[in-house]
């Protein structure tokens, strides 16, 4: 759906995006993770033809961007750096105006599509109040509704859950999962690790303009070859598995072992009781910390 090669954007002497090779496949729920200022938004803007690359190529849905971006934009729903709406008009009127502004929208089914989009994001009962009276969360939902208006096959969302409460975040996550299962490719960026971990199947990590990591979430979180073990008799385990216990914290042990099942059988055969046992997986946080160097908004003394 999206692929870039050596994509670079410089603003003066600042390199905002540096040699990025992004690869988003059809049907992905792709999460672009990175701290504020790591170049996520600039990257998203380049994908949509808003910002022009210094060099490198972009291809979205098989078309070169920005040269033929107008051919693919009608099939893309996007939210870039927060929602945008005319503050003196109601949410409904805003959606109608945006729909009428571009190509490929028929007046006939506009009302129905607007109602549907508002319903999907939980604003079905929204009244004639102007957008300036909306809360941040309502604006965010309106922005999502605008992105969904033409049932896009690709969703590009920059920080979609910004300003939402935990319940709202959960609703958006469920909505995006449902859309994805219906065939929509979802590409979203966030600085929130938990959000990406809960929603995405594929992860890219940006660090100071570079894409330092890009992989399936499942393989990033593959078992590490260690087993986390909880037992009321840690001393017996340590003496039995001599040298294979890597870490001990009270009654919880980290054991080097490939197969938790076999280890469990081994311990139980020896008459050792086991409270809990599970393969150790790297958390996404660990993966990200390993891949990135320093916080981008840190300013060190020279």
């Amino acid at each position, binding site marked *: 759906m999206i692929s870039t090669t050596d994509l670079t954007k410089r603003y003066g002497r600042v390199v905002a995006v540096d040699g990025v090779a992004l690869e988003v496949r059809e049907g992905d729920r792709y999460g672009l993770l990175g701290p504020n200022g790591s170049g996520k938004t*600039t990257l998203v*803007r380049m994908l*949509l*033809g*808003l*910002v*022009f690359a210094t060099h490198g190529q972009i291809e979205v849905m098989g078309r070169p961007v920005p040269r033929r*971006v*107008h051919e693919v*934009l*009608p099939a*893309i729903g*996007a939210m*870039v*750096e*927060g*929602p*945008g*709406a*005319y*503050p*003196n*008009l109601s949410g409904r*009127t805003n959606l109608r*105006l*945006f729909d*009428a*502004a*571009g*190509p490929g929208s028929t007046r006939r089914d506009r009302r129905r599509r607007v109602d549907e989009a508002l319903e999907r994001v939980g604003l079905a009962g929204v009244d004639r109040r102007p957008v300036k009276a909306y809360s941040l969360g309502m604006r965010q939902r309106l922005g999502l509704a*605008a992105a969904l208006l033409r049932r896009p096959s690709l969703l590009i969302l920059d920080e979609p859950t910004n300003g939402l409460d935990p319940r709202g975040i959960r609703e958006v996550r469920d909505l995006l999962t449902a859309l994805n299962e219906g065939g929509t490719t979802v590409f979203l960026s966030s600085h929130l690790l938990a959000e990406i971990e809960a929603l995405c199947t594929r992860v890219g990590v940006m660090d100071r303009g570079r894409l330092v990591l890009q992989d399936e979430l499942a393989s990033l979180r593959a078992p590490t070859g260690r087993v986390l073990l909880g037992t009321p008799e840690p001393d017996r385990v340590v003496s039995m598995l001599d040298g294979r216990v890597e870490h001990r914290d009270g009654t919880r042990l980290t054991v080097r072992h490939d197969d938790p099942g076999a280890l469990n059988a081994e311990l139980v055969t020896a008459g050792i009781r086991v409270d809990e046992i599970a393969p150790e997986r790297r958390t996404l946080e660990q993966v990200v910390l390993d891949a990135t160097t320093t916080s981008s908004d840190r300013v060190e003394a020279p």
Partner: protein
Amino acid sequence: MIRVELAKLFRRPRTYVIAGLLCLLPFTVAVFLATTRIPPPPGQGGAFLSAVLSNGALYPAAAMALVLPVFLPVSVAVLAGDAVAGEAATGTLRYLLIRPVGRTRLLVAKLIALVVFVLFAIGAVLITSYLTGLALFGSQPSAGVALPADVTSLSGVTITPFGLFLRLLGTVAYIVVSMLGVAAIALFLSTVTDSALGAAMGALAVLVTSQVLVTLDAAAAIRPYLPTRYWLAWIDFFREPVLWRDIERGAGIQLVYLAVLLGAAWANFLTRDITN
């Protein structure tokens, strides 16, 4: 997109506030003139003002002369300065562009909306001032309209009401072209900066500078090329016969400014990174 721009224009209260203020100025002047009946001395004050005392049907022309030098260009500069920069500030510019609305198409729609606004504002001023003129000064009983002496320097020339209507039409067309020149300056600046206020201020700075230089004899060499030099040339529509020389030059100058500045705005907007 043009329909959307017009919907946005006429759904904003400020459109009506500006038009209302524009109508209010000639009305206020008319009230003072009608109650005191003191005409400005010949050669001073707004054009046509002494003439309207005897014929209210001429008041629309006087109203144009009142709003044109300052009020109308200020409102056009404010709206045109807001055209692109304002969209950028509300965050709607990027959503229009990814809708997608072509950048050229967006600029054209903005320009057309500005023309419609100028026509709307002028129309409102003409209608209200015509009614004000008739109500406060009365109309001449005869079918003909005498052209005022201070303008034609030939007293007693009479034109038909239809002739007056045609001359007013020519005036409106000429003013629209002049205001398009103002709009082009502000629109160009609007594509350069993200501050609507900055763009409007920049355009006004250009106009004020030009107005000052027009009156400066030391700047006589560049006078014919200043954007505001021929702004009041539409008064020549009310001479008998119509004096076309300044009207033609004024329209020509505005069209050149329009072409150059719109070209610059287009080139700048088309290649610009949208980062707001």
